[in-house]
């Protein structure tokens, strides 16, 4: 893992990819060169204007290009993500990254990536890297409604993997929850990223089936680099541990999973 850098980065493109969902490409060579899948960036808007939002926002690195580009999958939620969704090519944001600990895998393993919503992002980056490392990768991708689905053909184009798609409203892909797609009793490594209820269900399943599982968690962050202690999650030993530096990816055994 290399040291993070601070980088004013130009927006190369920002395209609506689905309802409330944007694919944002930034020119960020130092980050693109050193990032590993599961790591994230903090995107800030600088101190010159006092525009809201004030704090920077964390986003998984969703892709990297040979040419120094990185791609982020951004879903509109509050003011920060609204602002990101409105970015136009040529504008600048302030990046800090790559940050945190990414996913880990052994070559040759079968990796099952379980993505809820924009939890898909880290796997767009992971899949091609892991495949290049000789792993086999499958992606289970769920959304609440069909209009929010990031086009599976695009996923395939970016990753080489055609995702198994689930929507709760059944409008595209299979009807149901992504978790239903997991085959119990496999020898595979589970990777999860998505809303907390999904991660909890995943953990229960992995625990019961004694599967290996790594999850990427989301907590409010201040600094993103371990100084402010803002981003803690409960560890299995009962301590508060920083998700920005000790995570955001944790093995399931490292965390407490209260009901």
């Amino acid at each position, binding site marked *: 893992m290399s040291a993070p850098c*601070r980088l004013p980065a130009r927006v190369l493109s920002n395209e609506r990819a689905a309802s409330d969902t944007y694919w944002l490409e930034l020119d960020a060579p130092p980050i693109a060169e050193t990032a590993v899948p599961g790591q994230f960036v903090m995107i800030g808007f600088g101190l010159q204007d006092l525009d809201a939002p004030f704090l920077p926002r964390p986003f998984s690195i969703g892709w990297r290009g040979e040419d120094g580009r990185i791609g982020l999958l951004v879903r509109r939620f509050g003011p920060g993500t609204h602002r990101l969704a409105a970015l136009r090519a040529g504008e600048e944001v302030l990046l800090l990254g790559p940050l945190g600990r990414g996913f880990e895998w052994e070559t040759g393993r079968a990796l099952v990536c379980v993505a809820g919503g924009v939890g898909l992002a880290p796997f767009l980056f992971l899949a091609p890297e892991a495949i290049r490392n000789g792993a086999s990768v499958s992606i289970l991708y769920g959304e609440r409604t069909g209009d929010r689905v990031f086009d599976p053909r695009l996923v395939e184009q970016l990753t080489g993997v055609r995702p198994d798609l689930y929507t709760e409203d059944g409008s595209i892909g299979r009807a149901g929850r992504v978790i239903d797609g997991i085959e119990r009793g496999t020898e595979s490594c589970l990777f999860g990223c998505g809303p907390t209820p999904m991660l909890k269900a995943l953990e229960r399943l992995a625990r019961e089936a004694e599967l290996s599982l790594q999850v990427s968690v989301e907590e*409010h962050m201040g600094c993103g680099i371990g100084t402010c202690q803002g981003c803690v999650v409960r560890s299995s030993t009962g301590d508060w541990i920083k998700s920005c530096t000790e995570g955001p990816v944790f093995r399931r055994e490292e965390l407490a999973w209260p009901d």
Partner: protein
Amino acid sequence: MAGLTQQLWGVEFQSPVLLASGTCGYGQEYAGLIPLDELGGIVTKAVSVEPRPGNPPHRVAETPGGMINAIGLQNVGLERFREEKLPWLAENLDRSHVLVNVVGHTADDFATVVADLDDAEGFLGYEINVSCPNVKGGTLFGTDPEALGELVRRVRGSTDRPVIVKLTPNVPDIAVYARVCEDAGADGLSTINTFPGMLIDVDARRPVIGNLSGGVSGPAILPMGVYLTWQAARAVEIPIIGIGGIRTARDALQYVLAGASLVQVGTALFVDPDVAINVHREISTYLDQQGVARLADLVGALETSGHV
């Protein structure tokens, strides 16, 4: 080029800009990102006798023009600070100064930390945090003149290093507290810590912050910080470190004109780690433009004649 150095507490500060406690960890985390050794210095995260587990999440959230935090003074504790954190600071910071932010439940706690660290290397002095609103009873020393005086005398008696007291803003008249500290032997004051605040998630009908309430920092508190610094500076002779909402050289210079010899930047670091060095450079440029030879000439130089 204008002189930005300040002579204080028997040492020279090469820059008036320090990093505020709780926003720069123990320095190491920002090592690759911020030229720490070019700054005035850093103030460590609060150190207490025992390690503190801290508060449940969420610990931080955005507020209009700032943020709220309730870390709960999570820290590694005196022993690990001494063994693991101070050596790094001693080794890596040559020209910039370290203040150790100290916190405790009792005057004894404070004195224990100070006495135990005093012969270690890697720091200049102490910033006594009597004002963190996040831990139960944490406002006690900072809002009770008698307890404050007692505490400062206790700490004063435990060390020959500089003792700087960081004041709490939510008092009717900060001058009273400033004088109490000076009389009790404090070498300086830091003004100000965060304001108690609360944020409610209307949908969940719950506080956003795990600890219910927290401390508000960032640009939103700038005018309050400048005011309180001015009030404190008029009340005492000891040097003052201005803190609260600084993100530009002009913000910092407001504190300087109000009477601060040094400043600290905190929350703005999260938005841009370069803020501290940028503020330093912009102050330098500004002084040159204005033909001011030394920053020291601006300390407390606020002109109020002709005003009410």
